[in-house]
């Protein structure tokens, strides 16, 4: 398996993703500059967290115009895997690869802490080794992670089982009290209809080693490595 991490100006989790994929998981990974017009032949493209273009205009709104994004879209259309984390998720929304939009957190504060995620679907290449309902302890770090979509979109996400992670507590309860940022239906991560593009606000790369206090995020990388149903290029 090969991976690419896209570096936008203002990305700041790019080296963290590289470290988790390459140094921890041993996946051959390269960093790709956003101005590059060609995407190397890879199975997985990661859009990392950060503040691309300083979050000017709207989060992710300018990054979608970066030259590399055309290639990322083509990669997704070909069925290649795309994972957007945090600001990467925001870019996927702006680029139209996933539906919905992000609002300021309900508290109006930036929130950085470990949260519990409930696995709503293991039917993606990113979650294939997880058990349905499995709880993951993974950190979030965002100011605008309050996922919003209209009723019709929400229904289609629910009907298509495209909600992959939701904010819960350690007992697996998903309700308003466990909704850290005001997201619709406690949504922490969604995929597209083809299930090859995943966007999530929590940071699995920050929970991939015991020394960091949690390694639940590693299960996403392990899922990708132990591919069942989905054939990697």
């Amino acid at each position, binding site marked *: 398996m090969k991976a690419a991490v896209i570096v936008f100006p203002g990305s700041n989790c790019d080296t963290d993703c590289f470290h988790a994929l390459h140094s921890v998981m041993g996946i051959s990974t390269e960093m790709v500059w956003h101005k590059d017009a060609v995407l190397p032949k890879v199975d997985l493209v990661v859009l990392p967290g950060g503040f691309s273009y300083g979050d000017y205009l709207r989060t992710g709104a300018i990054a979608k115009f970066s030259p590399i994004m055309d290639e990322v879209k083509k990669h997704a259309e070909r069925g290649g895997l795309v994972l957007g984390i945090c600001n990467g998720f925001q870019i996927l929304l702006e680029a139209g690869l996933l539906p919905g939009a992000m609002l300021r957190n309900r508290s109006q*504060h930036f929130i950085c802490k470990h949260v519990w995620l409930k696995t709503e679907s293991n039917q993606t290449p990113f979650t294939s080794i997880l058990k349905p309902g499995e709880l993951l302890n993974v950190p979030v770090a965002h100011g605008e992670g309050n996922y919003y979509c209209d009723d019709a979109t929400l229904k289609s996400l629910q009907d298509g089982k495209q909600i992959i992670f939701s904010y819960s507590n350690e007992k697996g309860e998903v309700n308003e009290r466990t909704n850290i940022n005001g997201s619709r239906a406690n949504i922490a991560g969604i995929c597209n209809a083809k299930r090859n593009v995943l966007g999530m606000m929590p*940071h699995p790369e920050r929970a991939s080693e015991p020394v960091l206090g949690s390694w639940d995020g590693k299960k996403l990388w392990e899922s990708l490595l132990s591919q069942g149903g989905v054939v990697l290029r």
Partner: protein
Amino acid sequence: MTTVAVEKKITPEIIKAHGITTDEYNRILKILGREPNLTELGMFSVMWSEHCSYKNSKPILKLFSKMNAELPRQEQLLVKPGEENAGIIDIGEGWAICFKIESHNHPSAIEPFQGAATGVGGILRDIFTMGARPVLLMNSLRFGDLNQPMTQRLFKGVVAGISHYGNCMGIPTVGGEVYFDPCYEGNPLVNAMALGLIRTDEIVRGSATGIGNSVYYLGAATGRDGLGGAAFASKELSEESHEDRPAVQAGDPFMEKLLLEACLELLKTDAVVGMQDMGAAGLTCAGCETASRGNSAVEIDLKYVPRRETGMVPYEIMLSESQERMLVIVKKGRESEVERIFEKWDLHAARIGEVVPGHDYIVKDNGKIVAQIPAKALADDGPVYIREEQRPAYLNETAQLDLAKISEPKDFGATLLKLLGHPSIASKAWVWEQYDHMVRTDTVLYPGHDAALIRVKGTKKGIAVATDCNSLYVYLDPRRGGNIAVAEAARNVACTGARPVGMSNCLNYGNPMKPEIFWQFHQSVLGLIESCKALEIPVTGGNVSFYNESPQAAVFPTPTITIVGLLDDIENRVPSSFQNEGDLIFIVGETKNEIGASHYLMVEHGLQKGVPPELDLIREKKLQNFLIAAAAQKQVNSAHDTSEGGLAVALAECCLKSSKGLGAVIDGLELIRNSDLREDALYFGESQSRVVISVNASKKESVIRLAMDHDLSILPLGKVFGRELVMDKLQVPVTQLKSVFDSAIPNIMDGGLSS
């Protein structure tokens, strides 16, 4: 003689408006051999302000360098204080650390969000200017009484500003400290600290050398923001200070992130001779300091300086403190190489001049000389004053504390909860959850432990950092308060198992022209030095902030200390909270009948009186050596020092911060008691050099032996057990301790715990 353009005749009023004294003006006349023009006068005024020249503090600060020279392990100090933008310490395996703490108090008082944000921006530039990659941020914040709406506004704005800048830069803010005391009403302290990692063979100097080399201006365009900010920081805040708002700069962390990446990429090319950020005193400071360090002359032409406003005159361009700007000295002939990097990062870059023969800083505007000043005179030869000192009269009054008149609490449990709910002691999660404290995936001990700890990828090493200053101690006894500030910060670092290797300070005081204030300053610095010497910790640098006074009074003297420690193997780290049910709890160190200057006295009895606890530096050193040895031998499962709130608060914190909400049964207090010891001193007194540790039952004998080998008192207190904290005079469920501790600040700031 050079012909320098004269825009306006200098009058005594203009001189006075620049805060320049008659003596200083005569000195300028002597240096130039002629009258300065307005631009030159402005340049002198900012460079000779306290903020840039340390004219009132230099004679005292020299004592730090003198102390350093007497310490062992000199070779570890690669860059000494004052030599460059930040000191550098060798940590082995080719790595070095570069760190510094600086104040941004006055801007934050006027405009808390931008003031704090640009404080973070400034300290980060000091680090990456040296070629180091910043890997962590910390801060030390002081505000007035949190129940005041004005304080809440400042607190909220400062935290949001730090969060905005640090988060966007992708550098974790791993901790810090926040205290609330009415003395900071209207004059908050905002001290920002940054630490960077650098290869020892890649250190960059901020100097301009090599005639013909190009001087580049890199980063944001110059505007009128922050005009004369350094001079502004050098006067007391008054009711009219709000009119100084244009002197507060506006920050753009995205621009700084690009600058950071571009600068570190530039340094890989070896085309760069020197680099200097444009912080306080902007282009004036960067130009004259690089020339002075390089023992050379720098000539620039302002027509090339990118501007964001029209009609700016040389005076404004030279004094602007617009943020996110760097001066880079590039080897002749290598210009296109560096320009490619600037372009990659879409950064403004302009070649504004070059290194020329001589020793002057020459500023032209469209070819016409508008300022020409010997660089050294501006940068290093400012006036130095020895200020008058006098022991403040208040000390006679505050030292009187009649213990017989202090009644013991009726309900020790209630007093404990009161202390835990005091905003200075209560959980600061409301603060640090707004900071991205995990980005870079190196943070191993999160905020809330005695010290923060990060790993160094590719090695086994860990770097521990703590900031500390109990300013009430310093107010009540500057010398001992200074002693304790260093000792406690070092103890916090040692609790994680790390060995303290360097200290940086940010010295915040009132108006130094007042003899009482200067006495506080001098005495507390002597205190800091005594501790550093005894604990063998070199000082890598510091920053002085005077004039921290509101219309009411000066702030408590607040020498904020940052201690950095080195842990050889990150796997040996020690957390501060209890880990396992059944572990035995010990107290190491002696408990004395001391309640003076304590938070207990303040919170329970409303008194800020008495003298701070005694500190025996030899004993302190033994305690820290014990902690380091215990960690290396994996003898202890947790270590937490007793500070504000004493033993009871320390034990409560060990319980409520444990992930499982573990309780403790403390049945060994009888071993500490003696006929001289009051019960409130036993529970809440702040005797120094004490640590609460928890150990596996099987390690009981060996840990006692280790403590005794270090000539320390060690007493068994009880064990980790259940879900309550039980001591002779109190029994409180950990959930209740935690609820009071966690909700105190959110209750005030958000009207209750949010998600």
